[in-house]
């Protein structure tokens, strides 16, 4: 979905998405890190169960809502990644996978 432009100074870190280890780079948002790592969608729409990904990247569309370190409904396009972060989709989905 996304790819990173070369960034010579940012440090590689590790985050966890749905229990799986993913490489991320310091200074990027959680949503961007996931979509750069081959994750194909961010949330599942509660009404129809269809896949969604961020539309606005600035905090107005709420398509990037994830659970981060146990806190629900966080706007993952506004939150920078941190070493060891544990990220999950919300539980209302029907067993879909990245």
């Amino acid at each position, binding site marked *: *979905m*996304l*790819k*990173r*432009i*070369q*960034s*010579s*100074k*940012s440090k590689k870190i590790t985050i966890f998405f749905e229990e799986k280890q993913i490489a991320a*780079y*310091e*200074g*990027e*948002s959680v949503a*961007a*890190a996931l*979509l*750069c790592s081959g994750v*194909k*969608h*961010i949330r599942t*729409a509660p*009404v*129809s169960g*269809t*896949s*969604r*990904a*961020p*539309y*606005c*990247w*600035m*905090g*107005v*569309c*709420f*398509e990037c*809502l994830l659970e981060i370190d146990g*806190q*629900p*409904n966080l*706007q993952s*396009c*506004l*939150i*920078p990644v941190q070493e060891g972060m544990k990220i999950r989709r919300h539980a209302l989905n029907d067993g879909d996978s990245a």
Partner: protein
Amino acid sequence: MKQIYDLVIIGAGAAGMAAALEAKKYQISVLVLDEQSEVGGQIYRSVRTTQNLRPETYELLGADYQHGQTLENAFRKAGIEFLSGAAVWQVDPDRAVHFLRNGKSLQVGVRRLLVATGAMERPVPIPGWTLPGVMGAAAADVLLKSSGAVPSGRVVLSGSGPLLWLAASRLVEAEVEILAILETINFSSYLKALPYLPQALRAVEYLLKGLRLKRQVSRAGIPVFSGIQNLRAEGTQRLETVCFTHRGQSRKFELETLLLHEGIVPNTQLTRQLGCEHSWNKLQRYWHPLLDEWGNTSVEGVAVAGDGGIVAGALTAEASGHLAALEIACQLGAITKNQRDSASKSYRKAIRHHQAVRPFLEHLYPPNPETLVPPDDATLVCRCEEVSAAQIRQAVEWGALDLSQMKAFTRCGMGPCQGRMCALTVAEIVANTQGKSAQEVGFFRGRPPLKPITLGQLAGIAEC
């Protein structure tokens, strides 16, 4: 006792940073809040992180973006009190500002409030726009700034406006594969804009920049289809195809990413909730708070600076931040009216200059009629509650007279985005179906909470 500040500024973009810097000169106690992780707003999003960690991207983004570093630097050195990751969800009538930060709801008191929450990209509802792979064009630019990432695979951009071309040119520089640019305006827009060209020439640098961006895209060999219609995104789990009509012919591209843009509109959630009077921009078809020449709203003690007032670009926003802070300093008795007036002259001059180009741009790039009132019934208007254009039209026929009733009939605007993504479209569809103007139909009422908050957070409100 909660802490009380002379001035709380919501939003640390161009306007908010400039206002804080100006206010700081007069020993006013200032607190700046922003929901993002650092200052910069959208235009200078993550400017410090980009410079420090992603020098290649910083280089690519060019001088206009790098100007944000000057502001950020001054802001940091001035020692202005700033809370990042602070999402304001309510301002009480007695001026307590409530915000969520690190999972807790905090509140501060305020004598004067400056709303500098900027603008958002106008949502572009087309069939299939909820598929992963479809996003805003300005959004892609924000993604580049905030994370140094770009779409992988084949990209098509569609819509109109200066930011469409800016996003395209930056993606060209980042060596993204762009298949085509689909323009929703046609030749008649140029004719309508022509009378405003002489005035726009006073700020000729904007026109030259526009030409440079277009030249860069055409040098890259990217085809431009002008006057396209019936835009549609298709795919099962994610975007696979974009279809459109050009000169009566159906065409399509297979692709991975579709970037949509039809201009930007002020964020009015907070000014709505505060009960400020708003007026309607007929050309660009958006609501904006009614402001006097200093940025004062109709509500005493509440001012607005930047694109959240009227969309006019980063440099106007910066100057309007200075003006609003001068006025607030004067209201608080920190400076006299004479001091305020003489300090304001250079900022007013700057605003006059930058605004010279706006009438030309506003006539050249009106939002596409198909964006305002989606003709295809299947188009989802409210992404959160998944309400289609057909359901909105049906509810009008069943007797939903205004937008509050529309919410009750369909649930549109009642999801986590609180109508940010659908309000303008719902109003245009209702107006179109009833044969009224969108201005008469109005807007969703702004209600707390402006951001999702849990009952636990609400129960645990703390003073800061």
